[in-house]
């Protein structure tokens, strides 16, 4: 992957936090780059600094070492070419579906009829035609997450940055929404960076997967996923898919068990202090 062709370059990111127990290194010298149209997943156990990385790339967090650049331009603060989709419920409950999706266009100063036309296109793209006038409270969790996705896509970001967008959904809904993401990515040739702890999701969607280590979060391995495209969720049943999952799980298990041990020790220590 030649750096000159990359649209997103992440170089040597180090982010430390001051905590009551001393300095915690959340992200430790992580580097990678993403080519235009590529789908890259960053996977790691909880506590590996994935969300920190997400916030650094999205420009919501500063005070880090290293450099993030989009098309050669260094990022400081939220960048117009990066569209973020958050893990939490993030639709505006006081706006209808169409007004949620039209939000970035409204902020950009686009006229009413023009932005509604455009927003309607993105509502259709995530498969929510007919729900334009509904409020988020009237929708299911999966539908709301699709509204958030359409809202971010409506701003037409060069790079889509997603932080566990389906974490709160059940596995079946997640696989089906994965199909939607695959289809959108194919249609829009959307460069995407997905942060996740879900192995199936990562293999189902990605061209490459970056596996992170548990605390401090370093790059453990980068795996090319050479499954054919276009894909659908049916690929989950194939041998090749199983092979990738097994291979990555091997790396991941080691890291996840470190995290588990760490948690157990922390709970034990806290208990000892209380006594």
């Amino acid at each position, binding site marked *: 992957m030649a750096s000159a062709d990359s649209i997103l370059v992440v170089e040597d990111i180090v982010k430390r936090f001051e905590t009551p127990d001393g300095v915690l290194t959340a992200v430790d010298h992580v580097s990678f780059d993403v080519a235009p149209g590529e789908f890259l997943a960053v996977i790691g156990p909880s506590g590996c600094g994935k969300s920190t990385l997400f916030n650094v790339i*999205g*420009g*919501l967090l500063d005070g880090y070492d290293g450099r993030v650049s989009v098309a050669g331009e260094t990022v400081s*603060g*939220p960048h*117009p070419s*990066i*569209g*973020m989709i*958050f893990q*939490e*419920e*993030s639709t*505006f409950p*006081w*706006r209808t579906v169409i007004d949620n999706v039209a*939000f*970035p266009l*409204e*902020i950009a100063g686009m006229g009413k009829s023009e932005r509604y036309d455009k927003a309607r296109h993105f509502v259709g793209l995530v498969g929510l035609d007919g*729900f334009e006038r*509904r*409020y988020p*409270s*009237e*929708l*299911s969790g*999966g*539908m709301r997450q699709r509204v958030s996705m359409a809202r971010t896509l409506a*701003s037409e970001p060069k790079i889509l940055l997603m932080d566990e967008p389906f974490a709160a959904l059940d596995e079946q*809904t997640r696989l089906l929404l994965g199909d939607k993401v695959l289809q959108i990515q194919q249609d829009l040739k959307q460069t995407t960076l997905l942060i996740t702890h879900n192995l199936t999701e990562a293999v189902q969607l990605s061209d490459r997967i970056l596996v992170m280590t548990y605390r401090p979060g370093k790059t453990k391995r980068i795996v090319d996923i050479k499954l054919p495209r276009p894909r659908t969720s049916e690929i989950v049943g194939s041998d090749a898919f199983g092979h990738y999952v097994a291979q990555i799980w091997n790396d991941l298990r080691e890291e996840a068990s470190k995290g588990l041990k760490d948690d157990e020790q922390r709970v034990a220590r806290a208990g000892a202090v209380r006594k």
Partner: protein
Amino acid sequence: MAAAGHMTASGAPARTGGMTLRRQVLLLRIALLAGLLGIWEAAAASGLLFRDVVPSLLTIGRSLFELLAVPDFQWEVGITTLWVPDFYRHLWITMAEVGAGMTIGGFSGLAVGLALGANPFLSKAFERFLYYLGPTPKIIFFPLMIMWFGVGPGSKVAMGTISCFFPIVLSAAAGMRQIESVLIRVGRSFRLNTWQMVTKIYLPAMRQPIVNGVRLGLGVAVIGTLLAETKLSNRGVGFLIIDAYNTFDMPRMYSLLIVLFVVAIGANALVGRASRG
């Protein structure tokens, strides 16, 4: 997945048995009201209670008519002079005082509440005092208000202001802290400026707590203003009530209370509609 998307926010009543239940509730209410009025009328007719403390319903009705429909005052409005019942002038004065108190107390409460909600340091330093002062009956400040603002409308407006300030400031501060942090991050990721953050995210997200604060504030502003009007005053509905009491005109006092009750219901309904609209 789509099946979960068909709940109505208002919670429509169940079709089976809904009508009969509603009718039963209505009947019970009518029965209760009729019963209370019957007991009242019986107490008035019995003569057991001191004369006029419980006047008959007919007497109250006549007094209500006099209060609302018999002109006894020349009200100069601009260049014209209206021949109206004096009550409307007093009602207007009270409403203007409450309105002024709500405006001053409401906007300052909102501003201070936003500052406290946005700044944990300020909130830590001052919010505790607001919680102490909030439930304190504001009438204890009235002597001070008279000294500062005189016996005229100034001290009444001041009472309305300090009454509504507290519920509004506390709900605005709490409302701001309740905003989901992810919504603010969404705003930042779309690169909103400060003004857009306030108008497109903070205020709409805080709408419900602010409306609740205004509702509570309106209630206590009316109480504060009316209480103030009952002391050292010659204008306003509060004055009319205490004047009727001093001249032992009980039917008039009851009529005033009935009118106030209706006005209060109307005001509450208006605020309620504003919160939904």
